[in-house]
């Protein structure tokens, strides 16, 4: 019944679910887990702690202590995941900016080099928006951009400057091109970047321990469902946030192709 949880495709496809709906799934999964445990496991677990005097106080102390460490862990992981997205976003912006600068540089080349290079740069930008981005959103590293980058490089080295001004322009264009290649490579590397499996294991085990500790409280059943349910719901939402930021090109908190779209629009204005 739970085999689907081991299928990576299931988790990838979760990114395709609208954000609000996906948050609800995480929330329901955590609350559901807590409630199921409250019904079936809580009576069994409480047998171990009931004879202890002031059991609720002890559980409360342990839970507080545990929550400090777990909260810190969640916070640090969330920051790491966000930084991952922010780094990818910065690389994308830099790649688009260097592409735009390169476009301006080659526009000053004599014809037919200038026009050919402008076409190739436009073609590259179009490919990134139309083909590479959807692939990146599916966690696939797009390959055909490399061909287009090679075509640009081939045309650039074909140009032989004839004047000192052209030499300076060509040197600057080649420098821009190298920068563009570097940022492009970093974008491709970030397509598959994600939190390591160990982090997810620690995070999920922490959430389970948190919930188990809540089951140990001695209180009215309805109160248990309500208070523990609120805690589980919040855990679900926070873990969903980390899941959303886990891969830079997937989910709502992800890098969009907007920077390239702006450059492409500018290129087509000429």
């Amino acid at each position: 019944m739970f085999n689907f949880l081991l299928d990576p495709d299931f988790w990838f496809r979760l990114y395709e679910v609208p954000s609000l709906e996906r948050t609800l799934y995480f929330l329901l999964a955590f609350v559901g887990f807590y409630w199921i445990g409250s019904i079936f496991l809580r009576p069994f677990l409480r047998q171990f702690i009931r004879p202890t005097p002031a059991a609720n106080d002890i559980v409360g102390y342990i839970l507080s202590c545990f929550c400090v460490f777990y909260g810190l862990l969640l916070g640090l992981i969330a920051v790491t995941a966000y930084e991952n997205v922010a780094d990818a976003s910065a690389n994308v912006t830099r790649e688009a900016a260097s592409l735009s600068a390169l476009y301006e540089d080659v526009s000053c080349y004599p014809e037919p080099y200038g026009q050919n290079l402008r076409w190739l740069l436009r073609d590259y930008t179009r490919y990134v928006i139309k083909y590479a981005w959807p692939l990146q959103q599916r966690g696939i590293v797009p390959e055909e951009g490399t061909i287009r980058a090679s075509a640009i490089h081939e045309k650039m080295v074909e140009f032989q400057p004839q004047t000192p001004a052209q030499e300076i322009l060509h040197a600057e264009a080649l420098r821009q091109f190298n920068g563009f290649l570097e940022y492009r490579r970093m974008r491709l590397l970030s397509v598959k970047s994600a939190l390591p499996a160990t982090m997810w294991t620690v995070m999920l085990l922490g959430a389970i321990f948190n919930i188990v500790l809540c089951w140990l409280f001695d209180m009215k059943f309805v109160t248990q469902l309500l208070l523990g349910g609120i805690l589980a719901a919040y855990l679900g939402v926070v873990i969903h946030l980390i899941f959303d930021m886990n891969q830079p090109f997937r989910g709502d908190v992800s890098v969009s192709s907007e920077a390239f779209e702006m450059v492409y629009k500018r290129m087509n204005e000429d």
Partner: protein
Amino acid sequence: MSGDEITRPEPAPLPRRQAPRVSRRRALTEGAAATLAAAGALSPVLFAGCSVGLPKREPPEVLVGLLNSQTGPMAISSTSLRDIELHAFEQINAAGGILGRKIDPRAPDPRSRPDLFAKRARELLDKGAVALFGCWTSTSRKAVLPIVEEFKKLLFYPVQYEGNESSRYVVYGGTLPNQQIFPTLDWMTSAAGGSRKRIFLVGSDYVFPRTANLIAKKYLAAKGLKPMGEAYVELGDRDFTAVVKKILASGADSVLNTVNGDSNLGLFAALSDAKVDPDKLPVVSTSVAEDELRSLLPKQVRGHYAAGCYFQTLDSEENRKWIEGFRREFGYDRVTGDPMEPQWCLVHLWKKAVEKAGSFETEAVRQAFRDGLEFAGPGGPVRLDPKTQHTNKFFRMGRIRTDRQFDIVYALEAPIEPDPYPQIAFPGWGVDWTKDGVTRGAEVDINGNV
């Protein structure tokens, strides 16, 4: 026993364990909460387990391979072929795909190298491509031929070529010598073309120019003419100084040019350096279209000619719409040209065949060819001849303008039917894929003397 004897009180009987008193209200509240909790708890698991809520999975995309050089000497010509193929598939996908399935076009780079064409074709077919589109030079097509025959998949080839070939697994959309070379020579030798009888043949050194020139020589011989000379350079070479000297020394009054790719830059630069006047010594090219003109300097090519089935300046509503659609996607400074139009038509003929067959399977698609598929292309209506798996072609002669476009100076009214084995060059040879396939005649040495 003394009076102050302590009397132990009777130990109080242990209280009987009583069943806890539960009010009806509490029982109802907790029962409802437990039921609600159980239902709520199980619902996401059940939902997730059944994959309800996840977006519906679309039917798997159909992979097609685009074999066009994006780097190397042929990139100048064939990059635009890739673009028009992508444009066609993007439009098809936007309209819902074919048989309800989206098309996934993959375009690796064979880098103008025949060995890489074969390698890329094999990789694409290994990945499950149902058909291949592209190739430019005959050498690249011939490198891919054994691969498509091994995998029994179709190659849709859009470029003009020399004929003398037929494969069950290739659909040829470009012009054949009887659709391009013959009418070109007819025009050059006619009054409209300046009655030029002293023709020099120049080409790249590979199978198309060699065979096309063999056919040209035989056709000229049938008219009682003989070329003033022949010269070939390696594909990609740009040094034509010696070739131009040879042309000028021969006393030729016109040149039939079968040079391919960016070698044309060298040829026209050398002609320009030699101050060749296109009115006195016009060059009629078979492989120069609008796309190649973007890399040629207008002052070097203005006034020369190109023979083809399509020019961007063709005045028709269908053509205007097609150009607008392409430019909207790829930029308003982009141009359309000869092999792009046949490739557009080939993609749509394939779509029609697949829809008619109700399958992407090669044999089913080939069966659908049998009734003669037609498509209204930008250059005019196109019909796929099921016997030869070639298309009929219009013939047009264009004169190069300074704005890198062509004035159409001559055109045949009706399209020319395809003949991959013109009897003047390949006696005894023929093909009919609706019957026995290829009929073999005597072997012809394409490097032999006429």
